[in-house]
């Protein structure tokens, strides 16, 4: 793998591989040249990978079939916002997704803590159960879930949708949290117990407080699942005014034709929030989590 060969040491985040034998020449010509080679390589890969996305973006800025505009235009975005409920859908998606993220973490973190610290057969059995039960594909679960939720008045309603998203992210999220908690030494909690903290107190005050990267990873996983889902939404949501964005995209697919420019404009709008989230949280992922602060455990 050429990536390995070109790997380069630096003082910040840890490398996959050190630049063998030449630690002192890291800023030399050779090092710089390697740096530009890697830049060219990643630029090429990124360009190829993004072709399908560029198609989407270009079309979002292309005038629609009934438009008089030429060249680059913003009117698709204008018409999506003025003629459809796109702003409502955006709001619904944000509410549903953020609620999912908050509740999923609120459910998964305590459960993950128990899986990490508990030492009984029951706990390990539960860990396996979490895994087994979520293996049934969603397409066979949607109908029974709808019938169940309809009995509780939770269909065509964002609350019901959120509960399902929390349920479907919760299993993997619990594992993710447990895996993270494993990396936090018990000694920290023991110290707090001696200070008179309860188990719950030390969980919230000591463990959670040190788990920001783990929480963020879990949150992003939940975010993307809830943000992009349409298989559940399409059965659970009916009223246009409570559609989420993927449902909004679906609504441009008619019996005989599809309004592609509107689809693409809405798709570009859909891409923005995750991009913002990733860009904002980027540094938390690159610092390598808790590793540094707890070195020497």
């Amino acid at each position, binding site marked *: 793998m050429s990536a390995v060969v070109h790997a380069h040491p630096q003082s910040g985040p840890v490398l996959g591989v050190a630049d063998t034998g030449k630690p002192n020449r890291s800023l030399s010509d050779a090092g710089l040249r390697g740096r530009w080679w890697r830049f060219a390589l990643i*630029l090429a890969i990124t360009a190829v990978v993004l072709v399908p996305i560029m198609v989407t973006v270009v079309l979002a800025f292309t005038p629609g079939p009934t438009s008089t505009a030429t060249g680059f235009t913003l009117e698709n975005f204008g018409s999506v916002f003025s003629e459809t409920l796109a702003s409502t859908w955006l709001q619904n998606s944000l509410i549903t997704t953020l609620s999912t993220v908050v509740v999923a973490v609120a459910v998964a973190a305590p459960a993950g803590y128990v899986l990490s610290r508990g030492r009984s057969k029951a706990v390990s059995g539960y*860990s396996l159960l979490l895994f087994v039960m979520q293996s049934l594909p969603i397409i066979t679960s949607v*109908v*029974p879930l709808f019938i169940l939720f309809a009995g509780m008045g939770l269909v065509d309603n964002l609350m019901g949708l959120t509960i399902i998203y929390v349920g479907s992210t919760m299993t993997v999220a619990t594992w993710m949290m447990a*895996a993270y908690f494993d990396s936090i030494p018990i000694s920290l909690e023991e110290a707090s117990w001696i200070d008179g903290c309860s188990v719950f107190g030390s969980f919230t005050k000591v463990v959670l407080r040190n788990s920001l990267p783990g929480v963020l990873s879990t949150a992003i996983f939940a975010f993307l699942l809830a943000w992009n889902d349409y298989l559940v939404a399409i059965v659970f949501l009916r009223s246009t005014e409570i559609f989420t964005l993927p449902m909004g*995209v679906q609504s441009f697919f008619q019996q005989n034709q599809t309004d592609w420019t509107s689809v693409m404009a809405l798709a570009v709008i859909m891409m923005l929030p995750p991009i913002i989230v990733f860009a904002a949280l980027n540094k938390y992922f690159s610092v*390598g989590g808790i590793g540094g602060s707890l070195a020497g455990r």
Partner: protein
Amino acid sequence: MALTTAQTGLSRARRGVAPGGPGKPANRKSKLSSQTRKTFFWLLLPSVILLVLIHGYPLVYAGVQATHDGSLIETGEFVGLENFANVLASDAFWKAARFTLLFTIVGVFGSWLLGLGLALLLRTKIPAGGLFKVLLLLPWVVPIVVSSTAWNWLVGTPDSLVPGMFRNLGLGTPLFLADPTLAAITVMVFKVWISFPFMMMMTSAALASVDTTVYEAASMDGASRWQQFSQITLPLIARSTYISWILMTIFCVNDFPTIYLLTGGGPVDATTSLVVLAYRTVFQDFQTGPGVAIAFLMTITLVVVSVILYRQIRKSSVE
């Protein structure tokens, strides 16, 4: 992203997990009082309720459907394991099973290799590295209804961009979605394209927790870069790797929209996976019992495969 330091992940279930590593479980015994148990119970309860509700109930319901000859609306008559027997005797099931296996293997390892390569590349100092990191996540972020359409535009007809490029290079005009073999390859490439960002984030996070000092020692011992990679880096991120494999296996086996939106399972079921077959059997042939039975068999297989990988993780953590 995901599973940042996800190293110990699944092994906990088998080990019963000692906090702070396997070395010092004894310290905790005293604290596991009835009070602690009670706290644990309350901490676990919300997830138990959700598990029963969102996963348990549909599972039981599916079990009922799979053993009856009803429809989505009526339960119908109990037929025992007849649906399972019929499904297992059908060629379509085994053909879909073979495709699912191939799709999963290519999906998991293809996305892992690409994700690993990019993660290694992105760990180094590169101009605008942060920007690339975000840009490379896009395939995972774009809604599949949209990306499948974009892919159709790129490869769907003989006049599309990619076949046109092949033609200009004198390589003929490949029909990427119309030829059964090429269609199978195309959906797998599409799946890898969607999935590699997840693998990239998983691997990036795992690499971040690797202590640099080990490389310094190794390079002093004169280890080559390949040796460092294969003998230090890979083993150090092994557990995280296994976890990402398991998760991606689930994502691939259970994947419905990727295949369904790009090829619909065709041509002539060349790209019909078990989920697509289950979906078409239930919602297009209206054979609820057999369709759900397919989903059930798939789930059982998935669990078995995962438990094998699970063991692998445990082994890797013992080493």
